[in-house]
């Protein structure tokens, strides 16, 4: 069966199925004031017991709780103690003459439904926290024993409908090699815990997951999201090998983490990460990223009702700059339009949105909004090394106009006496074929280029990357695309400006040697890919990379190119 892989790795082991008995109402109608008072008492004392249980967890020396664990428990304390929940339960007992059990089940169901219907993914994921709270109190109302006492055999794979905060804190995860849940999402508690503990995990497997029995033999692939139940010999041996190489790979990658990216013959390459918010920087540091080659700013503008003002934007950029701890950050100005829309900004439907009103075209058209963003970015530059990058430049006028607005923003800050760095580098994305072809002209305007291969590929090949029918035509190894990339890198070198790449291709191990051979100075990718790419650099030479580049550039089709690159990457 298949779910959503949320934490990579292979887990092989025996299933331990956690089935929570769904709470059931008893339908009893209370007959007297004395019974009503007794049920309210029962609820109150169950709350006290549930709080005691949390206290015991908090004070347990064996569990070695982290600050995050403590914060989760404190939230639970407040929820168990919540005056609104008590008020609602007591009202149900008094007016509808229900038992504490039934009243709490109904109130909990209402809260869970309310949170499940929210438009915010984080808040939706909280519904399982409220179910957890309800169950905790219910357990004492009905005095069923302790569900937390669980001991595992080595190599246990936990199978559950969902894992709540109290489950994951009290489970002894040392002997658990992975887990799969029926419900959940990338942001649910189970997924977050799995990633932080480095355990392979698959969520959202659906009802089929609960057909698994205790001690079934399970293989779980936390990358693809596949879960095998009692698989045959062939699958077992295939995954055993995969698991061993994954572990070996992980060891190797851990070793390269703190090494610089230098080829065996001494060529130094910069490995940057792409991020969307300050929170992503932990991963960047963990994986040995040397800085940020692309800070997408769209996240700040999405899922809200109005444009963020200068203060708020400044706070967002400054947080990332501080979190980068002195490493350089390239901030890209807003890239909305295309497939990204803002509810509060009236973008009319377009026939060809990717060829339409988007990115720098909007910024130059709405100079007021552009100024706000540029001022906020400049202000953040007072806190660490910041560069500004403009997206979707197609001609020299656009980059000149963008720089004019940037100068206006600087003047405004100077006049207001607000500090910013006097060493903010200015660069542009190369993602439109005309920009790639005229790299020699544009190079005179900027301090650096960053090649965006996703859009460059779609525009060069006239392939909409959202159209599933033509995905086979979306091909970054097409000789046409490669010639454009090579031209950009060569023109950058000719004019002495820095050239990086922040598209998918930078993280593709097949392309690493080719790009290195072309002379690419900076590779920017998702943080998790950095060790893999670095490992390839360390184990190769620039001389070999140049040979690879010569060979590839002489080939006439991407089939040949890909076959050749696969052969030499083995």
């Amino acid at each position, binding site marked *: 069966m298949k779910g959503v892989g949320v934490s990579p790795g292979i887990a092989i082991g025996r299933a331990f199925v956690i089935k929570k008995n769904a709470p059931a109402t008893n339908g009893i109608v209370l007959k007297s004031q004395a019974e009503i008072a007794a049920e309210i008492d029962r609820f109150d004392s169950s709350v006290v017991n549930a709080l005691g249980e949390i206290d015991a967890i908090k004070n347990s020396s064996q569990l070695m709780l982290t600050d995050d664990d403590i914060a989760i428990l404190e939230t639970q304390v407040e929820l168990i103690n919540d005056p609104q929940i008590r008020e609602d339960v007591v009202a149900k007992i008094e007016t509808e003459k229900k038992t504490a059990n039934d009243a709490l089940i109904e109130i909990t169901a209402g809260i869970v439904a309310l949170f499940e219907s929210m438009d915010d993914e984080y808040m939706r994921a909280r519904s399982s926290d409220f179910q957890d709270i309800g169950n905790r109190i219910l357990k004492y109302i009905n005095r069923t024993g302790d569900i937390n006492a669980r001991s595992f055999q080595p190599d246990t794979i936990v199978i559950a409908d969902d894992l709540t905060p109290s489950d994951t804190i009290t489970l002894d995860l040392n002997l658990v090699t992975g887990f799969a849940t029926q419900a959940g999402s990338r942001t649910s508690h189970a997924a977050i815990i799995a990633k932080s503990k480095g355990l392979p995990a698959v969520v959202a497997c659906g009802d089929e997951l609960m057909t698994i029995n205790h001690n079934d033999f399970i293989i779980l692939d936390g990358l693809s999201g596949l879960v095998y139940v009692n698989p045959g010999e062939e699958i077992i041996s295939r995954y055993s090998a995969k698991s061993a190489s994954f572990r070996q790979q992980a060891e190797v990658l851990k070793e390269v983490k703190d090494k610089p990216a230098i080829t065996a013959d001494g060529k130094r390459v910069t490995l940057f990460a792409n991020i969307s918010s300050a929170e992503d920087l932990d991963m960047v540091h963990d994986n040995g990223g040397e800085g940020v080659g692309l800070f997408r700013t769209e996240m700040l503008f999405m899922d809200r009702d109005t444009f963020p003002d200068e203060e708020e934007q400044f706070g967002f950029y400054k*947080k990332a700059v501080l979190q980068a701890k002195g490493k350089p950050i390239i901030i890209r100005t807003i890239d909305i339009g295309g497939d990204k829309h803002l509810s509060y900004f009236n973008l009319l439907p377009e026939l060809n949105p990717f060829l339409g009103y988007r990115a720098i075209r909007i910024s130059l058209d709405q100079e007021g909004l552009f100024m706000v963003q540029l001022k906020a970015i400049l202000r953040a530059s007072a806190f660490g090394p910041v560069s500004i990058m403009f997206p979707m430049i197609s001609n020299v006028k656009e980059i000149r106009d963008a720089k004019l607005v940037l100068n206006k923003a600087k003047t405004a800050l100077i006049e207001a006496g607000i500090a910013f760095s006097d060493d903010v580098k200015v660069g542009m994305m190369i993602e439109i074929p005309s920009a790639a072809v005229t790299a020699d002209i544009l190079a005179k305007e900027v301090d650096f280029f960053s090649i965006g291969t996703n859009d460059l590929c779609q525009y060069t090949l006239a392939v909409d990357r959202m159209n599933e029918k033509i995905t086979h035509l979306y091909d970054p190894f097409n000789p046409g695309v490669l010639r454009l990339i090579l031209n950009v890198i060569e023109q950058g070198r000719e004019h002495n400006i820095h050239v990086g790449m922040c598209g998918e291709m930078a993280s593709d191990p097949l392309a690493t040697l080719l790009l290195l051979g072309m002379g690419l100075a900076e590779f920017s990718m998702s943080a998790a890919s950095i060790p893999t790419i670095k490992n390839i650099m360390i184990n190769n030479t620039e001389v070999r990379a140049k040979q690879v580049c010569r060979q590839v550039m002489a080939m006439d089709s991407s089939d040949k190119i890909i076959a050749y690159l696969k052969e030499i990457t083995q």
Partner: protein
Amino acid sequence: MITKHYVITSVQGMHARPATQLVKLAKGFKATTSLKKGDKTVKLNSLLNILSLSIKGGETVSVIIDGEDEVSAAVIIDDFFTKQLKEL
């Protein structure tokens, strides 16, 4: 009675962790404290009620403080919204 308006500056909005801190603060005052977003007002002593407002980054909320220690309570609440919230 004191009424204060705040723009939520943390990107994630009023998540469980900061909301828990806020409830703990509010429980320490003698004054009654409430939180208002749009036309909904809830008491600050209930985490459930705060979370049910689903407050996101960039949204504006009002805090209403009413009671004998309202002045000192307002200072503490001010500190929470302008400083602590960013770090939680």
